[in-house]
């Protein structure tokens, strides 16, 4: 029985390595093929974050008139809606 088990192990380990290696290659190929899309997306994301940061800095100046609070509330509401 233990010999049978060793057979199973050779069979299993060998093929699992083949499978996982192929998967590793497939992911790398996919990443290379899709690199342009990924880069564009990343740049857009960064631009957006910078714009958001800029927007965030400006209203911080005029705290007195309640705009910050309204912004906080709106952001909370937006987050909440986005989450559902």
């Amino acid at each position: 029985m233990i010999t049978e088990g060793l057979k199973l192990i050779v069979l299993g380990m060998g093929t699992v390595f083949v499978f996982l290696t192929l998967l590793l290659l497939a992911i790398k190929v996919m990443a290379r093929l899709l690199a342009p899309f990924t880069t564009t997306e990343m740049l857009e994301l960064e631009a957006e974050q910078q714009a958001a940061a800029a927007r965030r800095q400006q209203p911080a100046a005029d705290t007195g008139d309640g705009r910050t609070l309204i912004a906080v509330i709106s952001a909370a509401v937006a987050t909440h809606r986005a989450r559902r």
Partner: protein
Amino acid sequence: MVNMFGPCENIADIDIPMGSNCFRVVICAFFLWLPFHSAAGEGDAGGVTAQISAVAESADHAECLPPIGELFKKLWESTGISAFVERTGDSWTLGIGRLLMIGIGFLLLYLGIRRKFEPLLLVTIGFGCILSNVPLAGINEPGGVIYFIYQAGIATGYFPLIIFMGVGALTDFGPLIANPKTVLLGAAAQFGIFATLLGALALSRWVPCIDFSMRDAAAIGIIGGADGPTAIFLSAKLSPHLLGAIAVAAYSYMALVPIIQPPIMRALTTPEERRIRMVQLRHVGRAEKILFPLVVLTLCIVLLPSAAPLIGFFMFGNLMRECLVVERLSDTIQNSLINITTIFLGLGVGSKLSAEGFLTIETVGILVLGIIAFCIGTACGVLMAR
């Protein structure tokens, strides 16, 4: 919101703090039901003594109950104490064995609630274990609800598939796509699995009372992968009689991961190595995330089609998560659907925790193997990662 399914709270709301009277109604009702119970043919095929059956028959046909003294005797015979005591004479697994299994059910509840070991599964499995071992109630016999849950959802493999869909919808493969070499860490799981398999065969060879078939050994091996739903799915196929022990072992060791892993890791790695792993990952694009489940599915179809049900449902869940056009469905899978299925999966696994199936030397072997294999798996994972 509370008062919708019973008069329970109505009464409390008005004036008298009656609390909930629901369960008192149940109790009253069941005393009424008692004399008719077995003749109703529900569940307790082998679970009710012949005498009560006779009462019921007379109640049914002649519309006439036995004298009051005899009725109280029957009533005594239908209590749990009497069942635990009298059945032990016939077979210890029906009497004292059930009592022990109920104790194990309470132990699982303790581990889940107090120790917070995988509570979602240990609480439901523990309760399922208790209910399955109630004498005379037939909950785990043909017609009983937990027997039905096991047959309909676990023996067929459907519940683990739905759980896999949910886990897929809850998993973010971003880190894996950013750092694909981690895929090869699968060997960690593999070493755990094959070590457990060998261990099971060794036990079977050298320990006199243990006799695992090749199938049993393969099912036990999966514990070494520390993945609950896979263990349940495959042991339902390979050796259903060990499912209870395997599921309990798999979930217990899953719960031990955060406890056992850090010291092993500390022993096998240097602080510098641990710091290196925290490097910033690259940004993973939406297209990559959408294609990833499809790539895995394609590889699976090409190389290993027999794994397609489980991997397919896993990747179906992940695709719904990442494609962003079916958020309704993805939300429901991540919440209602996986929760409902978890409840019934746990109860169904509990049905395999019966005294005759669980209180064996094999179970002890499985539990010991499991803990050893888990340590090996973790150690190999860490060594591979270096």
